[in-house]
């Protein structure tokens, strides 16, 4: 499994340019007829390899929709999204699912851990979906959990964990499959400031690799410091692109 | 996950309990074997009948010649009697008295013959003497003539006296014969099957039940009743076997004797003669050798008779086909085919 992933990466590195995700002219509207509300109005965005990109903006600015389109969960009405040289639009639903499984990692605002599984088992889920045996998957998940500082709570159920701990399990789950692209949707929104800060720090610490990219959707300005670039969105369009911590320092 | 284990074991237990209960409770009780083997047809193709064992000569229902008081019964049930053996005695005192009177009337009659004989001889002598006298004057012709008449009369008297004796003897013989009749005797050899009279009882001439039932139990026969529906399937000469009720491991081979030409209403086994009968039966008489085990007159038997047009003898078939596979369908075809 690892080997196959590595091979993929090597092939991709050889063939493709610096950017990992490129969105061009993406539009998306919800509803029909009179009630049709345009959410994305032609978004162009590139995400480079090795980059942590923050997608910020007020509620309803379309940042989560953009994230969903990039993840292949929502289809864009128009425009193209290319990830790792693959055009998402060309995929069948099954291929999209498989693509997500093999190349993407997710962190959600509500964690979405399975309540009946232990921390280690939750973190192992992406590997289990790929068909890795339970024993091996859990062993790998435990390793990753240790790197995010959850080595002591491997057998705990999510209900016994604090929000921060749950989100760390979610980070482990997102990272266990070694995805090329990590997508985080408001990872700090349900956490207090201090924990949120630490969590995003961990996302950056563990997710930032030279050949990978991280996209974090947030409206929490306190974590802007973790972004290499900060993309401001408003009313369905890219409003402004800032460079990372330097811009603040 | 502990929970899973508990529910899993509960489910397994429930299923096992159900299977065990079903296995125990729903096992179809096997039919108990017949207590005695039932009568089984020796051949697949037979006509079955119910039969009764009876004496070859139909039983004799002994009745008195006249009504009268029974004084002595000489026999008990199961006695073997020869022809002429006395069975019972009716009251004969009256006839015996008559006999004595009649007997006593014989000597006077005989004496009267002797008397007439002497008288005849006397008058014959007198006549001879008168005729010997040649002198017509000494003896008148008239005297001779009268004497001759006297002789003739004496001759007739003697004849009448003889006839009187004959009559008296005959009368005595008649009484004797009547007397003899009061002793009821066996009309033929046989066994006493039933005695329904005791000394002191009054025997009626036209009683419904016989006083004594005499039968010949040495040579027996079977009377088989066949439902008239099955009657066409039996031809004269068909072989048959019989089984005693409840004793079916040994069969009694039967030989055909005759078919009663008249179809009779079936007598019901309940013996209730108020019953109306709607079944009529063909009766076939079969003879058989007395088997090694005891059989009795009146015993019921199950009879299996070979069907008409079924060829070889029954015993051959029972040898070759007993326990064999299903009968040839062509043979068990429709009834019209089989009725010849």
């Amino acid at each position, binding site marked *: 499994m690892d080997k196959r992933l590595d091979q993929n990466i090597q092939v991709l590195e050889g063939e493709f340019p610096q950017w990992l995700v490129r969105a061009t002219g993406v539009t998306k509207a919800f509803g029909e007829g009179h009630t049709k509300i345009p959410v994305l109005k032609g978004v162009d965005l590139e995400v480079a390899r090795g980059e942590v990109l923050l997608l910020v903006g007020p509620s309803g600015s379309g940042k989560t929709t953009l994230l969903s389109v990039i993840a292949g*969960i929502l289809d864009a009405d128009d425009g193209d999204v290319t990830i790792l040289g693959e055009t998402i639009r060309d995929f069948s639903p099954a291929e999209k699912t498989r693509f997500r499984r093999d190349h993407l990692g997710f962190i959600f605002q509500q964690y979405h851990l399975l309540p009946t599984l232990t921390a280690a088992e939750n973190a192992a889920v992406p590997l289990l979906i790929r068909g890795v045996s339970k024993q091996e998957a859990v062993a790998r998940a435990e390793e990753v959990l240790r790197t995010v500082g959850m080595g002591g709570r491997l057998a705990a159920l999510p209900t016994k964990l604090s929000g921060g701990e749950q989100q760390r399990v979610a980070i482990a789950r997102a990272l266990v499959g070694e995805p090329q692209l990590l997508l985080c949707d408001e990872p700090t929104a349900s956490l207090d400031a201090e924990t949120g800060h630490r969590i995003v720090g961990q996302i950056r610490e563990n997710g930032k690799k030279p050949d990978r990219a991280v996209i974090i959707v947030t409206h929490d300005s306190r974590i802007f410091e973790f972004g290499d670039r900060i993309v401001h969105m408003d009313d369905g369009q890219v409003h402004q692109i800032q460079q990372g911590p330097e811009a603040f320092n | 996950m502990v929970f899973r284990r508990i529910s899993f074991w509960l489910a397994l237990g429930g299923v096992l309990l159900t299977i065990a209960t079903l296995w125990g409770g729903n096992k179809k009780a096997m039919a108990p074997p017949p207590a005695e083997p039932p009568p089984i047809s020796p051949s697949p193709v037979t006509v079955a009948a119910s039969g009764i064992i009876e004496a070859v000569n139909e039983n004799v229902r002994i009745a008195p010649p006249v009504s009268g008081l029974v004084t002595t019964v000489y026999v008990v049930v199961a006695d073997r009697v020869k022809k002429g053996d006395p069975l019972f005695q009716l009251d004969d005192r009256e006839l015996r008295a008559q006999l004595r009177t009649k007997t006593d009337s014989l000597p006077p009659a005989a004496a009267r013959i002797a008397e007439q004989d002497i008288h005849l001889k006397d008058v014959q002598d007198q006549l001879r003497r008168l005729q010997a006298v040649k002198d017509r004057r000494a003896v008148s012709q008239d005297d001779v003539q009268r004497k001759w008449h006297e002789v003739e009369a004496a001759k007739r008297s003697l004849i009448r006296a003889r006839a009187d004796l004959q009559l008296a003897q005959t009368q005595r013989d008649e009484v004797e014969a009547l007397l003899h009749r009061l002793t009821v005797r066996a009309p033929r050899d046989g066994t006493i099957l039933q005695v329904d009279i005791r000394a002191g009882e009054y025997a009626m001439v036209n009683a419904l039940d016989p006083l004594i039932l005499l039968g010949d139990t040495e040579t027996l026969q079977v009377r088989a009743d066949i439902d008239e529906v*099955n009657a066409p399937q039996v031809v004269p000469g068909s072989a048959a076997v019989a089984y005693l009720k409840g004793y079916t491991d040994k069969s009694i081979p039967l030989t055909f004797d005759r078919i009663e030409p008249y179809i009779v209403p079936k007598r019901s086994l309940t013996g209730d003669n108020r019953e109306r009968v709607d*079944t009529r039966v063909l009766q076939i008489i079969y003879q058989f050798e007395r088997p090694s085990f005891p059989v009795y007159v009146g015993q019921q038997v199950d009879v299996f008779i070979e069907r008409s047009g079924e060829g070889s003898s029954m015993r051959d078939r029972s040898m070759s086909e007993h326990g064999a596979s299903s009968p040839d369908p062509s043979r068990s075809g429709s009834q019209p085919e089989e009725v010849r």
Partner: protein
Amino acid sequence: MNFVALKMLFGDRAKYLMLLAGLTFSTMLIVQQGSIFWGLMTWSMSGITNVNAPIWVTDPNINQVEEIKPLADTAVTRVRSVPGVKWAVPLYKGVQRARLRDGNFEQIALVGIDPSTLIGRPHTIMEGKIEDLRAPEAVAVDQLGVERLGGPDKVFVGATFEINDHRARIVAIVKTQKSFQNFPFVYMTYERALSITPAERRKLSYVLVSPMEGVPTEQLVRRIRKETGLGAYTEEQFGWKTIGWILKNTGIGVNFGTTVLLGFVVGMAIAGQTFYLFTVENLKQFGALKAIGASTGMLARMILLQSFTVGVIGYGVGVGLATLFGLTVGSGGRLPFKETWPLLVGVFVALLMICSLSSVISIRKLAKLEPAVVFRG
């Protein structure tokens, strides 16, 4: 992912309990109702099953076993004359009145069996010897008779009572299957039964027949019908004929059919709905899995695994409870309760089908589920 599916199922104790309870209850309801129905039918057939003969011959227009249309005596020999008949013996059946020593009357089902072979006698003899039936005045009574005629104190081997003003001496206590009319069975010999029952033109109720080895029962039945013009049935045919008559001519068919059907529908609705609710409640979890990359097929397999697992377990527990009910409440034949394989298998299949159906509905919902719900939420 099977492991994940099972953990989802078993992990939430409350939901699992509810789900299991729903399935258990519906299984129990259906099995219990069905078993009582079948028990009643077994009672109605008891007149046949107690006698246990392969072929029954009687009037061609008979409807059911308790409806006696007597034959002429010669029917026995006529049937014996049919090729392929191994044996044929007479049987008397009729409802008579027994008078107890205390003067009370009790209806009894009188059975007269062939005295020499005793064919038609009950299978289980609890006390005494059935062979003693051949003795004068001898009868055998069943366990219900013991109860009805005054209890074990008054009814024992050697005790006497009266049937139609004739003395009856008990020589055996036997075990029988209860009958629909709930009259106790009393056995005596055929001839004795004829002699103590009121005069009738014909008295032979049935001729019991066995085929020769190698002769198929059905074939012989057809042949007996053709050759004698009498009605002949295999034990099974006669049983079904009786059941059919009872279903058609008494309210039992409609009443119980409705009850069983309602039990079935209600049970299945509960089972289906509980499981559907279970998946709907877990929809968010499935959505997360879908977003992470689980295909719809994989999720469908998980749901099917869950529904079959809980279905099988619920079935097992439900059937076990129904059996326990039968063993306790229905013990001693007080309640017509009889489970049968077809019922159990049928309920199992129906339950799995309902589980599949609710799974399919859940899966359809899942297939339409936009994994986008996992963002925000």
